[in-house]
């Protein structure tokens, strides 16, 4: 008898238990409850009614639109600003370490604290932002009170808070590019702009992909920042899927809010999986 296994399968029991109990079981159960009218103690099977309700209701559907805008906008800005900052921060400037830390600090602050702080900074008449704009003669908008602007104001704050992570990932990616490429480039007499477009950018693709995916997933399920800053308002104008789900839960519509969670799960999967496939296809080996 040949023994060809190194470890016993028993070793997967602890991790398997945790995985099944905390991940698989709740997921399966939430799929089930999304088809019910549920009071936490009792449930009644109602088929697809919860999902229908979600799709028929404009004040629920606005969340899908806003979530997509928010996710794409924040992910895009984080990549662009992140690349820009990373290029500066791997160059040989003196205050590199200090600037690296300051860029990363907002990541460490609690999202709720950031939200409340910016709610004050963005106050239309007393906020620091509009006071400053006043000094140079510009009347600042009502950042969070204007229904057409609120979601974008929150997106900007999210970028400010999240760009540090993107920058750190991109710095790591760029530092791992072998110096040989740049030397060869220099010998060929290329400009530094060329070096950026033809060496740095293509070779940091894996890092950029990671940033895009993380930012996109983060953007799709954002909740705390919106809740702290506008509560989804004014009206429903800055509601995201997650804040809508939360409001349904608050209202005691447990089945409906679970259906919202299932929809969010499907949405994230449908968006992120193809993008992941597409992006990784183009990755270059170093």
């Amino acid at each position, binding site marked *: 008898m040949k023994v*060809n*296994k190194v470890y*016993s*399968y*028993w070793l*997967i*029991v602890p991790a*398997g*238990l945790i995985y*099944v*109990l905390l991940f698989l*079981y709740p997921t399966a159960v939430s799929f089930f409850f999304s088809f019910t*009218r549920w*009071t*936490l*103690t009792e449930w*009644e099977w109602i088929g697809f*009614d919860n999902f229908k*309700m979600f799709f028929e*209701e*404009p*004040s629920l559907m606005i969340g899908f639109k806003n979530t997509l805008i928010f996710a794409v906008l924040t992910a895009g800005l984080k990549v662009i600003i992140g690349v820009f900052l990373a290029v500066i921060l791997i160059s040989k400037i003196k205050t590199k370490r200090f600037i690296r830390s300051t860029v990363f600090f907002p990541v460490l602050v609690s999202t709720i604290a950031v939200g409340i702080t910016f709610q004050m900074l963005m*106050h*239309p*008449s007393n906020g620091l932002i509009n006071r400053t704009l006043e000094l140079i003669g510009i009347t600042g908008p*009502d950042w*969070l*009170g*204007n*229904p057409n602007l609120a979601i974008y104001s929150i997106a900007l704050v999210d970028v400010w808070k999240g760009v540090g992570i993107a920058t750190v990932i991109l710095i790591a990616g760029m530092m791992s590019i072998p110096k040989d490429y740049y030397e060869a480039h220099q010998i060929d007499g290329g400009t530094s702009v060329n070096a950026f477009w033809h060496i740095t950018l293509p070779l940091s693709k894996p890092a950029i992909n990671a940033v895009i995916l993380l930012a996109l997933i983060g953007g799709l399920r954002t909740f705390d920042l919106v809740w702290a800053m*506008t*509560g*989804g*308002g*004014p*009206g*429903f*104008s800055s509601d995201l899927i997650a804040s809508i789900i939360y*409001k*349904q*839960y*608050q*209202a*005691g*519509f447990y*089945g*409906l809010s679970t259906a919202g969670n299932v929809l969010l799960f499907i949405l994230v999967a449908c968006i992120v999986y193809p993008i992941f496939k597409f992006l990784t296809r183009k990755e270059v080996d170093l």
Partner: protein
Amino acid sequence: MEALKTGKWLALAVIGLFVLLLAACGSDDTSSSDNGSDQVGGTVSILISGSQRASASVEAVAEGVKEKYNIDTEIEVRPEGAEGDNVVKTRLATGEMTDIMSYNSGALFKALNPSQHFADLSDEPYMDTIQEEFKVAVSDGDGIYGVPGGSTSSGGILYNKAVYEELGLEVPQTWEEFLDNNDKIKAEGKVPVVAAYQETWTSQVILLGDYYNLHAAEPDFGEKYTANEMKYSSTPAALRGLEKIAELHEHGHYNDAASSTSYTNGLEMLATGEAVHFPVITDALAEIESNHPDQVDDIGFFAIPNDDPEIHGMTIWLPGGFYVNKDAQDLDAAKRWVEYATSPEGIEKQMEAIKPNGPYMVEGVELPDDTYEAVLDMNEYVEAGNVTSALEFSSPLKGPNLEQITVELGLGMVDPAEAAEKYDRDVERQALQLDLEGW
């Protein structure tokens, strides 16, 4: 190879078994309560909302109960508003509720499925002293489950009497006169009506406070609305409340930057005379007093005006209740606690700790001498018998998105007809989730 397979399946089976065992553990909870001794003493736990008033009032009762029965009170604090509702619902569902719960009366309470969780107090002798209107709001089927946890309050318009005097204005008898007053106030460079939409709940007060007027026109609206026979969008008297919110926007009577104005800002504007009206729940009086003690007696009250000068009435909010957990550790002590809280002695204690925002729902209680001016104004409506309790006490339907919809309306993002339709759909969604008859 065979051994390997068996090992793999065995491992998976063990995982499955654990899952089942844990799931089984969670569902069964039989707690035995040991009561039966009439001995005075013991400890009672109570869950209250995190407002200053609630805790001051409960602490006053706790002190009295300690003196009289030597019962200790453990106070637990939960958040206010919708987040607090979550805490209450979750704790009830998991069987972790305290011995006594302080919570809203009316539809919110009835949605908790009271007979399942709370002790029936309908046979207690003190029930005769409590007004019928309150008992209806805390009953479920034949049982009555609560006693009043404070004074009533009202949703109407708090106004600055000092500015009224200065500008020579009269308390408006109709909505038209109210708009005229606002125009005059605006001409003086003051804000006629505060819109403090940073706290979204404040945006719905005009509609909710207009219920007296709605009720005067359609006495059975509550019933028919619950049964899906009447809707906001198709009932002119109901729509009128939404129109009033919109008209103030159209006339430019609200302050600028409404979405960034907080409730506290709004009260400050009112107290200092920068603004003259604030449609709000009269619970605000206590906050005005604590922040602006010298101005609180400048603040008066009038109900949301009707279009008809003959109809003047106030919509009241019944107080929340104290409810006894059926499975309380010491049921007897908990019952004594609520009995004391609703006795004239207990209410006097509460009034010493906090000034009432309106009359009490218990017989034999008189308002103290230092009562707020605005409460005295409210009392005139009560004495004239022109009060109705708000819609939320007679119907379990209050769409959770009303406050967002009224914000949209107050900011001019939608018109009243659209708002009414949105709200009807919101209510429909709630009715379907509550599985009410007729929907």
